[in-house]
């Protein structure tokens, strides 16, 4: 089996064709726009925090299949997690929920939602200290 072909395995294709939580979020606590100049991903994430936990995360924009799928999966992954838990999500967690090997060339795409989330949270919450 061609290992790279597994990138486009079912769950990636599924989340790419039917992205979860795509659109505009009402009453977002923070948002973060991410543009990956290397490949043309242009995605904005929006998160609503209630009582220190993620109530909902949505995203919008245009991206490749990996970044779209990863972001879509992330919107479910963070639901209910505390801000501290979100800050502690690692790249390994992302690779784990994607479930397939990601080549170095596609890592930026896979980690796009992680980067955006953590940057967005830092901007929002670190100022409050």
């Amino acid at each position, binding site marked *: 089996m061609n290992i790279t*072909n597994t*990138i*486009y395995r079912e769950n990636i*294709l*599924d989340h790419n064709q*039917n992205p979860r939580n795509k659109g505009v979020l009402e009453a977002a606590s923070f948002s973060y726009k991410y543009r990956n100049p290397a*490949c*043309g991903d242009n995605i904005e994430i929006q998160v609503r925090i209630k009582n220190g936990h993620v109530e909902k995360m949505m995203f919008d924009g*245009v991206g490749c299949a*990996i970044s779209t799928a990863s972001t879509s999966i992330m919107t479910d992954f963070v639901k209910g997690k505390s801000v501290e838990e979100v800050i502690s999500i690692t790249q390994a967690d992302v690779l784990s929920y994607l479930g397939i090997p990601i080549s170095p060339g596609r890592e930026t795409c896979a980690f796009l939602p992680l980067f955006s989330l953590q940057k967005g949270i830092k901007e929002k919450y670190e100022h409050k200290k």
Partner: protein
Amino acid sequence: MTTQPTIQDDFPILTQDTVYLDSAATSLKPRQVIDAVSEYYEKFNANVHRGAFGWSVEATNRFDQAHEVIAEWFGADSDEIIFTSGATQSLNILAQSLTADLQEGDEIVLTILEHHSNLVPWQQHAKKVGAVLKFIELNEDGTLNLDHARELITDKTKIVSFMAVSNVLGTILPIKELIELAHAHGAVTVVDGAQHTPHARPNLRALGVDFYAFSGHKMYGPTGTGGFYGKRELLEELEPSHFGGGMISEVSREDSTWNELPHKFEPGTQNIAGALGMAEGVLYMKGIGMATITAHTRTLTTYAIEKLQSLDGVKVYGPMNPVHRNGVISFEVEGIHPHDVADLLNQKKVAIRSGHHCAMPLMEYLNVPGLCRASIGLYNTKADIDALVEGIVYAQSVMNQSV
């Protein structure tokens, strides 16, 4: 029975199983060029213009000869050819030196097609002096809008700079007309020839262009090579912006005077081996003949456009008329992000490029997040285009399967 050697036989890397359609990014190198680089390191590795010993004399002769080869190829004198690390460095040098004396409100006219290397240097240096950038736009078919050019180039224009051929749309710009327009208003012209010289042999003196940047590595030479041409009177007047050994005549504690051309613009130890390789690349093209190369590029470009257009869900960008375009075919596959197309083509061992191609303002103007791009080199064949087409169909089958 002996088989005729083919062009592909000259390229050692082609023994690998890849269809290389990214020559617009950098070309593959023939054995002759690789050998020229190695030969310097193996036989006469020395610095130039200094030594009295054998290797240095040999290196100096070869290096000077490299200037002559490039100059002859472009219809210029060898001291009108300055070696740099590529078109990007050439354009940076020219932008820095040519904007130095601009006044606030002076205008620099570029086109919306420009590669960042012929946009950002002007942009950043213009900011320092308060000069204003203007961008000539396109016709529907991707050719340059000359009416718009006539509108934008006025007596306020001091510099008109443009690429000869677009690295995204393949558009061949109306070079002569733009130079005439610029000169009619007393503006100096700077042409970015990076995508031009792999498929054409411009006679720079006949063209009348003031400055012309080129990349050696796009015309079968090594990476880290290239240069620019300037009319002698202008180069003699132009103040250098990079200083050091080799480009001076006299140096005291307080001040320095400059060496003669081309040395004035070649500070420090140059990429000697690279320059020899670049000259060899030009000789390689000369051996095939530019008429043959141009025809080959045109044939394959036309074939590629035809085949891609015939695919469902594929849109080709840029002028459809082969007279107006050259060597570069950008396209979009409906519903599939360019990055995914490139990844899936890579699985089929077809190498294309995807993204914004160092032309973000153009992507914005075209209203696309990025594009896929295939480009032609002299080793490509119709079979390569067929492989591209098969690869796209494969990509569509993978991405569009129902889940």
